């Protein structure tokens, strides 16, 4: 671990996006004393007033949440006929949005869990962020199947439970799989998020000046006191949760994709779907974190924790998944051609030359071609390009779900049942409302919870790592025992 050279101009941002020859590149730039880490992260939540931008953003997001509430109530009192769904396209916007939000959720788990399992220390700056993204995106995702079933007040019928109505669960039904996968995902990501936050919530408790804050954070942190014996169990618990969540990342999108793959619809009935959906989910998730982390690091002054190296690494992973997506798109077209089946080829021809041709080409460019700019380092370190690609990719991934669902459904085996899908204004308002829900939760998180995992960052800065001297001194201790 090296610290920053002293002659470095303090106001200039330190570029740690490449490995230095003269020593290890620091994970946290600037003055990385333990107290300063606490000051910076807690300072965001303790400031009497948030930045003006925060209030503006919250006002916009909250109005969108209001819109969502109105749309959901309107739908509940009127019926699903308000949406563009029709007899041919039974899965319209709700399922598109559901798959889209589940996908966004995945990056959080990926960054937290998989990078923890592989002991990637650079994740400490962004994992809390990413986990928050997961929890909020799952909340948005869960909303859509719930309203899509038509009678959400009976959504608990999805869960097999003993009842006196003669309801008998069908364990072969993908609807049950969804309930299991999404329910598990929401519960698990919430628990993982909270467990990871316990030491930082304790830091908030210990710094709080008002009684209310002290009580709330005190209860949330379970009375954590940083005991070494607790840390031992805590670290093991976190690692176990990470391993389980890693399985979940691969499992949830695979389950969601199986909902499609078990249906005998051309364009859905494919063995490639589980890895395809998982890669797509991770891709959109990484792009979301990229798009959110950059504005947040400027807005809340977290440049030393979410460094250029983080942005650079995120961009590289986005590039990897973009390339996987491009490969899968090509393979899908090839397999459709190679199958020799006219039914199988039709949706793929429709994707490029049908009535929704612009969406078909859009996903190729937004997801496959544009992110290739990340091959160049100047693009990976340019915040504007990173945010732009982050937004484009999410747009592209939303379009991809539209393409998979709508294009396969709107023209199936019987031309007499072909029907175009036109979303209504209620569809669009509900989608916009779900974004409002996501951003409201995210903004509240930025203001009231530890945005960066302080305890994890402290363990990787020079002050937190025992020196070799300490090891020698420690090694000398048994001699003390002797005399």
């Amino acid at each position: 671990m090296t610290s920053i050279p002293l002659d470095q101009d303090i106001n200039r941002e330190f570029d740690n996006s490449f490995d230095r020859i003269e020593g290890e590149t620091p994970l946290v730039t600037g003055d990385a004393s333990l107290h300063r880490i606490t000051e910076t992260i807690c300072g965001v939540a303790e400031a009497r007033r948030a930045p003006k931008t925060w209030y503006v953003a919250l006002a916009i997001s909250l109005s969108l949440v209001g819109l969502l509430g109105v749309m959901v109530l309107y739908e509940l009192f009127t019926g699903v006929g308000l949406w563009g769904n029709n007899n041919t396209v039974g899965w319209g916007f709700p399922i598109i949005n559901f798959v889209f939000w589940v996908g966004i959720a995945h990056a959080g788990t990926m960054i937290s869990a998989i990078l923890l399992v592989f002991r990637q220390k650079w994740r400490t700056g962004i994992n809390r962020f990413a986990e928050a993204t997961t929890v909020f995106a799952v909340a948005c995702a869960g909303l859509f199947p719930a309203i899509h079933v038509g009678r959400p007040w009976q959504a608990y019928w999805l869960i097999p439970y003993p009842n006196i109505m003669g309801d008998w669960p069908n364990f072969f039904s993908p609807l049950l799989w969804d309930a299991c996968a999404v329910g598990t995902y929401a519960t698990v990501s919430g628990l993982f998020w909270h467990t990871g936050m316990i030491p930082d919530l304790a830091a908030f408790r210990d710094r709080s000046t008002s009684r209310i804050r002290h009580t709330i954070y005190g209860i949330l942190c379970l009375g954590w006191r940083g005991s070494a014996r607790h840390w031992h169990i805590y670290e093991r618990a976190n690692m176990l949760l990470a391993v389980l969540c890693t399985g979940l990342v691969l499992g949830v999108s695979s389950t969601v994709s199986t909902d499609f793959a078990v249906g005998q619809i051309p364009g859905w009935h494919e063995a490639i779907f589980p890895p395809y959906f998982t890669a797509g989910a991770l891709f959109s998730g990484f792009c979301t974190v990229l798009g959110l982390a950059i504005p947040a690091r400027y807005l809340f002054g977290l440049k030393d924790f979410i460094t250029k190296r983080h942005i650079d690494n995120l961009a590289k992973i986005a590039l990897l998944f973009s390339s996987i997506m491009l490969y899968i798109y090509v393979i899908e077209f090839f397999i459709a051609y190679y199958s020799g089946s006219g039914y199988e080829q039709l949706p793929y021809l429709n994707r490029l030359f049908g009535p929704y041709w612009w969406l078909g080409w859009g996903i190729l460019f937004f997801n496959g071609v544009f992110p290739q700019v990340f091959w160049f380092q100047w693009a990976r370190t340019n915040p504007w390009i990173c945010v732009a690609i982050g937004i484009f990719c999410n747009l592209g991934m939303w379009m991809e779900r539209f393409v998979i669902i709508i294009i396969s459904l709107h023209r199936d085996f019987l031309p007499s049942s072909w029907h175009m899908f036109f979303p209504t204004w209620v569809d669009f308002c509900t989608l916009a409302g779900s974004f409002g829900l996501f951003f409201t939760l995210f903004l509240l998180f930025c203001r009231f919870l530890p945005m960066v995992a302080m305890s994890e960052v402290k363990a990787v800065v020079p002050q937190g790592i025992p020196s070799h001297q300490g090891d020698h001194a420690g090694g000398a201790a048994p001699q003390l025992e002797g005399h």
Partner: protein
Amino acid sequence: MYMSENAIVVQNTEAPELFGLMAEYPNVDSLLVAARRVQAEGYTCWDCHTPFPVHGLDKVMKIKPTILPWLSLGGALTGVFIGLVLPLLVNGIAYPLNFSGKPYWGLPANVPVAFPLFILFGVFSTVVGFSLLCGLPKLYHPLFTVKRFKRATDDGLFLVIEAADPRFDVIGTRQLLESLGAVALDEVKD
């Protein structure tokens, strides 16, 4: 030795409510040295409190590996068992229903349910196990009465020896902690 020592008697009469002694150390290295010495001296009721997990401290303190992984495994296997056996009982034995000519029970069809339940139960048992093994939530602790202890979540590195320890004596333990380079020493009242 315990009964005859004068210091113990003094402690028992003068400070009956003493919880223990809390020493602060300036850096990770000195905390590790101190912890190693305290362990070597034969103390059993003592602990370190740090704002982050200090690498190597659990080895120095000779903390036994936790049984938590076994709890997780047990929970996870219970989940799989439920995910596979519940459909068998419900659809295979209790009331066989024919869905599109499919078998009443099949392993592949149950994987999408059994797998999430594997994770869900594994996570539940990990979180509950963590909570039980640590004795949390515990919203009050004598250490919280010490003002300095607030820095245990910021940048303070503390070593606490409890009065309940059989080897504890106010003067001797205080001297030991001071000789190990403590920058601050507090008496923690219960």
